[in-house]
């Protein structure tokens, strides 16, 4: 540019608030949350069941996943192929989400087709066939899916990390969809029993978001209001606990890169330190020029990207630095990481805090601009026990975080010399150097076949 313009200042952001829902209760007790969002012509519906994964029997873990995946394989009114065809004819998409806290069935559909699609959605949830053949197939497909995961370096790392960071008896230590030995035990009978015991109107929330052509409360009552289940059982969510610190190397002979997870037991959104830790984690490993990414990617070229993530659960949680590094720099990358994550001598600065606040504040209107974004957040809030104005409150709390608070909260959660390490890579090249550089108790495991 010949005549240079100065770098423009940023004009103050307009006030933005998360949309407020209208709440209602259906005649059978289902709690309804409706978000009227003008212009959002693809409606998003989430049916949120307060069924934590510890509701599964220990020997048949995976049963919740198989049950949820079989919901749209046919209902008492419409058999297999026919049901899926009816849904797809409405232009609808059906999905499920399983987290440790609860189950969700999800429907996306153009608003003009909502009435018919919502009826089908209710059918899938309340009266699925759960036919033997479909259940057995989904068991086999889940086993195949596990084999795919066990062949993928990043997934092996995440699975091994949760297995180490949470105390091993807790549900959080094992895959949400179940491990091979328990998935194999899932039968049509156990799936039917799981549905019978846990799917019902009590403690269940229906979230609807979009631009509705007609009254969504009436439609919800018509489709879900007559759903009853006297046998529905309530299960209290188990609290995860921290596992003992471990260092694990999962061997993938010949791998050109190693996936690394270095982290520990964390906190949840209701912890008073949550806002301060969110700011700290963005500065350490969330921003493009975060402390970790600026050095390991932009200065050293060791990785396509490195992050620090905090994953909150309903209570507690975990955090980890995660990245993938070419084999010959893994040891050096880890040594650098272990130095960078210490903040005792280099506490977070006010600039880092300001940038983090600006980022979180600025991205919210976009993140929650669609029916899908709003409904998804509302469902997350339901399962985490958070209030309807959680997003606004948490943004206000973020703005009040000081650099001192960010550093202090971070130090109280992240203990750099006491972290669990998982590396998935070529053991022949990595095991000895890792043992020699601060991980003397390294366990080496073979990757599962």
């Amino acid at each position, binding site marked *: 540019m010949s005549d240079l313009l100065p770098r*423009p200042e940023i004009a103050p*952001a307009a006030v933005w608030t998360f949309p407020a829902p209208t709440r209602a209760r259906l005649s059978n007790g289902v709690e309804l949350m409706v978000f009227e969002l003008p212009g959002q012509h693809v409606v998003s519906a989430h049916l949120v069941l307060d069924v934590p994964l510890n509701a599964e029997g220990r020997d048949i873990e995976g049963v919740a996943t198989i049950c949820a995946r079989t919901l749209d394989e046919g209902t008492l009114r419409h058999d297999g192929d026919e049901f899926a065809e009816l849904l*797809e004819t409405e232009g609808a998409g059906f999905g499920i989400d399983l987290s440790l806290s609860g189950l969700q069935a999800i429907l996306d559909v153009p608003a003009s*087709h909502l009435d018919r699609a919502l009826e089908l959605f209710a059918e899938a949830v309340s009266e699925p066939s759960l036919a033997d053949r479909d259940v057995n197939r989904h068991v086999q497909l889940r086993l*195949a899916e596990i084999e795919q995961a066990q062949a993928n*370096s990043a997934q092996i790392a995440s699975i091994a990390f949760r297995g180490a960071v949470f105390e091993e008896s807790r549900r959080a230590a094992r895959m949400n969809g179940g491990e091979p030995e328990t998935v194999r035990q899932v039968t049509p009978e156990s799936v039917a029993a799981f549905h019978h015991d846990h799917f019902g109107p009590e403690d269940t929330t229906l979230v609807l978001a979009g631009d509705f052509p007609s009254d969504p409360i009436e439609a919800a009552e018509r489709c879900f209001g007559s759903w009853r289940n006297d046998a529905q059982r309530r299960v209290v969510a188990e609290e995860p606990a921290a596992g003992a610190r471990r260092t694990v190397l999962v061997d993938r002979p010949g791998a050109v890169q190693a996936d690394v997870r270095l982290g520990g037991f964390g906190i949840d959104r209701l912890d008073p330190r949550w806002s301060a830790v969110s700011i700290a984690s963005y500065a350490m490993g969330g921003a493009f020029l975060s402390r970790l990414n600026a050095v390991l990617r932009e200065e050293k070229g060791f990785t396509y990207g490195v992050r620090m993530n905090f994953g909150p659960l309903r209570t507690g949680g975990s955090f980890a630095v995660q990245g993938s590094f070419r084999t010959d720099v893994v040891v050096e990358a880890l040594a650098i990481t272990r130095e960078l994550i210490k903040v005792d001598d280099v506490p977070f600065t006010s600039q880092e805090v300001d940038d983090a606040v600006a980022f979180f504040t600025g991205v919210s209107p976009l993140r929650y601009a669609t029916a899908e974004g709003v409904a998804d957040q509302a469902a997350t809030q339901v399962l985490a026990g958070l209030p309807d104005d959680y997003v606004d409150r948490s943004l206000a709390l973020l703005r009040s975080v000081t650099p001192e608070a960010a550093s202090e909260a971070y130090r109280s959660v992240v203990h750099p010399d006491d972290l669990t390490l998982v590396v998935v890579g070529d053991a022949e090249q990595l095991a000895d150097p890792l043992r020699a550089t601060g991980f003397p108790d390294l366990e080496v495991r073979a990757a599962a076949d």
Partner: protein
Amino acid sequence: MTQPQRLARFGRCAVMWGMTQGALTRLAYPIAQHTLENGLRVISSPDHIAPSIAINIWYDVGSRDEEEGRTGFAHLFEHVMFQGSAHVASGQHIALLQAAGAVVNATTWFDRTNYFETLPTGGLDLALWLEADRMGTLLDALTQENLDNQREVVKEEKRQRYDNVPYGDVMELLNTLTFPPDHPYGHTTIGSMEDLDAATLEDVHAFFRRHYVPSNAVLSIVGDAEPDDAFGRAETYFGNLPADAQPTKPQAGPLEPLSGVPRTETSGKVPADALYLTWRIPARGAPHFDALDLAFSILGHGQTSRLHKQLIRRTEHAESTGASTMGLIGGNSFGFSYARARDGFSPEQLEQETVELIDELIRDGPTEDELQRAKAQFERHWLHELARVDSRADALGEYATLHGDPHLINSRIAEITAINNQDVQTAMEQWFRPEQRAALIYRQEQS
């Protein structure tokens, strides 16, 4: 910065203004266009529902423009675009925008390189200033060190996304099966390690001068700004960049469908044997492409597709299946199908079954219901695509760059709705017959 690996063509969404009548949603997003004197095309689509604004620049350059021995260069160049310009230090492009509350990224693909950020409206000037600074002065800041650093980052990206994952080389093998080696689509966007190593500072200079000129770009500004405002700001920041000739595009006339069923077999550390089939089909926008898009969808998209019903539900020979087109602009596109075998079943068996399903579909045509479902699914995906300002800006840039007309985003649903069974059957007979396929069989390495 991500490099999209989009085997599925369906999938995007945004706000729709309009009416729904039966299956047909009429879209009427406001679209205004203006071309600066230096040739930069600017598109504005106002939407004041949120105090956010999306900026998206499509440069009409992708891996199809790469020269021999320089595969992967367009994507490496995309990374260099974040290494600073005359008035912006290395890495600061993203850092400044994130500190303004922006989501920032860029992608490179066969036909494009696009750069984008979405942020609160008050950051619009900053975003435009940053984009203009690198369009005008990237080379002033370029150093060997920056190039070498990003070369390493891109090689790590290749390792992470392709070399260290099961089936990671499938795209490369399919490119090679479907197009001649010297064809613009004969190599992947990520390229080869050797070619990445060979890239020099001179290459970066030449590539920038040739492709990163205002007349080769489309700037879309979507969200909380009226057209006059958007055009005025575009003029302020980009208006004094010098004009330069638009580069010529690689000439690749439409190739005929494949013949002789070319085949490749490979093996690796994969958990299941797999079959991939590919077809060389017409370019996006060319006759038959949309009908073929529906045909691939009917064959393999979703739970009611023929592949899913037959191979997953009925015979239970496969653990997953799929089919889709991947629309490209330069003479031809790809169409794909795949199936991963369950234990005890061979890829050859899956191939035989897939061939029978295609034969049947050509012989009898899709049912009325199937066609309706494929259209309804397209409609939902398209509405989703346009529902957010960021993906709407991307779609506008895409249609303006590749088809010369951003208004097409408003008529896509009507175009798809107009296709009938006969159109699908005719298109398949010409382009999607089993004997026009190429096949890749991926086997588990025997240990």
